[in-house]
């Protein structure tokens, strides 16, 4: 039995000891890995800096993907923000552009941090780093946010899945959205219970999302779905920080995600046989792609 089987249990331990959820995750994971808390924190700091670097590279990137299908969309939005043509508040437009940019960097063989997967790698960095920047948050607090996200993701992986082939996109972008919502809530001073609620609210809004990659590539619709995940994450954190609760507790939401994933047809789980992959255009792209071999 793992310590990471229930978010409620982790919150209870943290509340009993009057510490942050991230403190408990740090302590239990350091023990699991057989290293000190300081060592874990330093390793996480390295990962954090890789994430920062990856986002910087993503913003500068102007390459097309290997297949030629995607690339350049994030730049369109960055340009709109720069020339004041974007219509949303800059905080939100930036998160959208950054989520796209990291997804695009991944698709052209850039260096990314999978969180929890490569396909969903844009969600946590876009939310976490933009929230940090907009609110002048210390790196140490951002690290606590990242550790909180990791702990939430670990419970989801243990009790449901983080693989599109097993649970559909809800398991990849859905898990990333929960993780990002939890990180943001933590970084903005939310209680442990608020962190758990934010994770629940985010996942609820992604339930049932299918994994239907055109031609089996991590491009269409994966890159743009990172945007959806990031938007749901900030909405969930906003709600939770205002005191809104998920009626269904977080562990039960995770159970529901597994339950939905188990019932989902294999055609809708990364096999490129259903959803957008099975559309007329999706099939044409696939045929042209296979012909190029």
């Amino acid at each position, binding site marked *: 039995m793992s310590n990471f089987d229930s978010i409620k249990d982790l919150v209870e331990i943290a509340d009993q000891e009057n510490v942050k959820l991230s403190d408990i995750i740090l302590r239990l994971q350091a023990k699991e890995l057989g290293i000190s808390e300081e060592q874990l924190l330093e390793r*996480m700091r390295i990962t954090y800096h890789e994430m920062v670097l990856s986002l910087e590279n993503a913003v500068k990137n102007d390459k097309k993907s*290997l297949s030629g299908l995607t690339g350049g969309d994030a730049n369109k939005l960055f340009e709109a923000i720069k020339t004041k043509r974007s219509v949303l508040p800059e905080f939100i437009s930036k998160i959208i552009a950054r989520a796209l940019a990291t997804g695009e960097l991944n698709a052209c*063989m850039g260096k990314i941090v999978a969180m929890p997967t490569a396909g969903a790698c844009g969600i946590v960095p876009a939310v976490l780093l933009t929230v940090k920047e907009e609110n002048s948050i210390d790196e140490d607090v951002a690290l606590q946010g990242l550790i909180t996200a990791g702990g939430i993701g670990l419970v989801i992986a243990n009790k449901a899945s983080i693989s599109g082939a097993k649970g559909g996109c809800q398991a990849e972008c859905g898990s990333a959205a929960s993780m990002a919502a939890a990180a943001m809530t933590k970084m903005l001073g939310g209680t442990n219970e608020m962190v758990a609620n934010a994770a629940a609210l985010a996942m609820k809004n992604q339930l049932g999302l299918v994994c239907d990659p055109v031609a089996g590539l991590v491009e269409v619709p994966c890159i743009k779905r990172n945007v959806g995940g990031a938007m749901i994450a900030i909405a969930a954190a906003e709600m939770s920080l205002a005191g809104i609760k998920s009626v269904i507790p977080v562990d039960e939401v995770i159970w529901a995600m597994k339950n939905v994933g188990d019932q989902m047809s294999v055609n809708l789980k990364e096999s490129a046989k259903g959803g957008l992959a099975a559309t007329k255009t999706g099939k044409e792209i696939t045929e042209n792609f296979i012909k190029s071999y």
Partner: protein
Amino acid sequence: MNIFDIIGPIMIGPSSSHTAGVVRIAKITSKLLGETIVKAKVYFSGSFTTTYKGHGSDKAVMGGLLGYNADDIRIRDSKNEFIKRKTDISFDTEDLSEYHPNTVKIEVTGESGKRISVIGCSVGGGSILIRRINQYEVQFDATYNTLIIPHNDISGLIAFVARVIAEHQINIANMKVFRSERGGKAIMIIETDQLIGKEIINQLQSNSNIFEITYLEPIE
């Protein structure tokens, strides 16, 4: 699974199974050969056959054969490096679905003429399983310090290896022996938590019934 499997791995995109896992299988192949590669033949199976170019699995193989880790940005230019070194490489497909949906076979020839053939499976999230080395059906995931010891299938040899390792206070986590035929050649896979020093390898290598040993540190 731990927190760094969730916040990580740090890798070259776009796919942990089709890119990062493939780099690792190829890197192990190159280590098993242990010399400069002059020729490589790669056979993709399962979902690789239709998506390997789009996932950069071909560049991932070349990067791994050059000894790069899964987070090495040079993977993107590995093809040019192969051209520069005039290393002959070809890509083909073969049905290896009896192993796993994502399987690759890599055959390499070194400058001395030595040949190694490896079948590896990319089992998800960048994790791998090596399933065949030359004629031997094996099974290891390269997450431990791993000793790969080809040897003659004779009595007392396993005891000899265990004794040498024990003398150095190294604890064996897992030990598996695979043989192609009785009394013929066999291969021993030993996994340990601790690093294995040169001294131990030299001592094992001095036994005339042991062929060339390969030592792998846990994959990155």
